[in-house]
C-alpha cells in the first residue's frame, strides 16, 4: 500500500499542481486522491489501465477543489507583459510562468485534457476513459485547449516577432 502511494504520488501531485496552480491545494487534492484510490481499490476493474483510473480520480478532486475555490475571493493579479525572450534561466522561468498563467485561464475540462495528453502522455482513449467522455470529445478539448493557450500567449506578447526582425534585416 505504501509502495503504491509512493509510486504514483508525484504523478498525481503534478497533475493536481497543474490543475490547481497552488501547492497547498495540490497537496490536499493529492492526499484525497490517494486515499480514495486505496479505499476504492476493490472497485477498480483490472481490465482497465490503472493510471487513467487514478488520474480520473485526481481530476475529479481537482474539479471539486476548483468549484469550492469559486466561492473564495480571487487574489488580485498583477499583469506584467514579458519584455524579451533571451534564452537564459530567468527567461525560461518567465515563459513557464506565462504558460502556467494561460493554463489557469482555460476551462477545467480543456486544461485537464491538455495536461493528460501533453504532460502525462496519455492517449486519447485513456483520456476519454479517465474523463468519462467520448474519444472525440477528449480530442476536441485538447484542440481547444491548444487554441486557447496559443491565443493567450500571442496576446501576452510571448511570441517572438522573428518575421518582423527578418523583414527589418532584409530591408
Amino acid at each position, binding site marked *: *500500500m*505504501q509502495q503504491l*502511494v509512493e509510486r504514483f*504520488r*508525484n504523478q498525481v*501531485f*503534478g497533475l493536481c*499542481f*497543474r490543475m490547481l496552480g497552488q*501547492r497547498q491545494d*495540490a*497537496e490536499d487534492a*493529492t*492526499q484525497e486522491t*490517494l*486515499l480514495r484510490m*486505496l*479505499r476504492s481499490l476493490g472497485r477498480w476493474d483490472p481490465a482497465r489501465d490503472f493510471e487513467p483510473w487514478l488520474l480520473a480520480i485526481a481530476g475529479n478532486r481537482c474539479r471539486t477543489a476548483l468549484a469550492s475555490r469559486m466561492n473564495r475571493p480571487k487574489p488580485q493579479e498583477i499583469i506584467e507583459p514579458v519584455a524579451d*525572450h533571451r534564452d537564459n534561466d530567468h527567461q*525560461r*522561468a518567465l*515563459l*513557464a510562468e*506565462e*504558460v*502556467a498563467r*494561460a493554463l489557469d485561464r482555460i476551462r477545467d475540462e480543456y486544461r485537464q485534457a491538455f495536461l493528460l495528453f*501533453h*504532460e502525462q502522455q496519455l492517449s*486519447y482513449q485513456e483520456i476519454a476513459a479517465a474523463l468519462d467522455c467520448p474519444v472525440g470529445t477528449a*480530442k476536441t478539448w*485538447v*484542440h481547444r485547449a*491548444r487554441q486557447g*493557450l*496559443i*491565443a493567450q*500567449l*500571442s496576446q501576452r506578447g*510571448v*511570441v*517572438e516577432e*522573428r*518575421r518582423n526582425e527578418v523583414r527589418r534585416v532584409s530591408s
Partner: protein
Amino acid sequence: MKCDEFQARLHDLLDQRLAPEDDDALRSHANNCDHCDHVLQAQERLFYGLAQFPAPTPSGEFAERLAASVVTTPRSRRSLARPLMILALGLAAAVAIAFLPRFSATPTNVAKLPPTASPDAPVNAANELASSTNHSAANDASLESETARAIGNGQNEASQPPSDAALAASASNEVYRLWISEMATRMQTLSVDSTSPVEELASGFRPVANSISGAIGALRRTLPGIRPHESDAAEPPQAGLWRDGLLPV
C-alpha cells in the same frame, strides 16, 4: 495550403506528438501568412514553456503527512465502522426477537376454522349418513369424549371445534363430520328456540342465524356420502331478490 488546412495539419502533428515547426508544408505556408506564422511560433513557445515547468514534487513534509494518513485513516475509519455495524445488527436482532412473537402468534379473537376433511380416508357412506344424525355412533373413545364435550356444553355455550390433538389421534374426516353435524344441530335448535325478535325484523331482512345455518349446510354438503336435503338448502341471496324486484327497495 489554406489557413484552415494549416490549422488541421498543425493539430494532426501535435496529436502524433511531432514537432510542427519541422514540417515543410507548414513552414511554407507560415512564410507567406503572418497569422499562421504567429500561430506556429506561439505553439512552439507553448510547448517549450511547458517543458520548462519544474517537475512539481510534493514537499518532504507532505510526503510524511501523506504516508501517515494512508496508514492511519483507513484503519481508524474501519475500527469505527465495524463496531457501529455490529451494534446496529444487534439492535435489529433484538427488535426482531421482541416483536416477532406478536406477529406470528395466532390471534385469540379469530374464529378457528373447521378441520379439513381428508379425501384419502376411506369412508363408508352409510356410516357417514347414520353418524351424521346420531352422535353416539362414533367408535373411538377419544372421539366419543370429544363429541360428548361438544354437544354437552349446551345451547348457551359456543361450540368448539375438535382440538388439534383429537384430530391427530383420530380420523380427521370423522371429527370434521361430527363437528359440522353438531354445528348444524345447534343452529337448527337456535332457529327454533330463539327468543330473539325475528318477527320484528323489517321486510327483506332475515336473521343472522339463518345465514349461518345456510353456511353450515353448505359445509355439511362437502362431506362424502352426505346427500343434501331440504333443510340444508341455503336461502337465495337477498341481493338477487332485490334485483328481481321480489323485495321492496
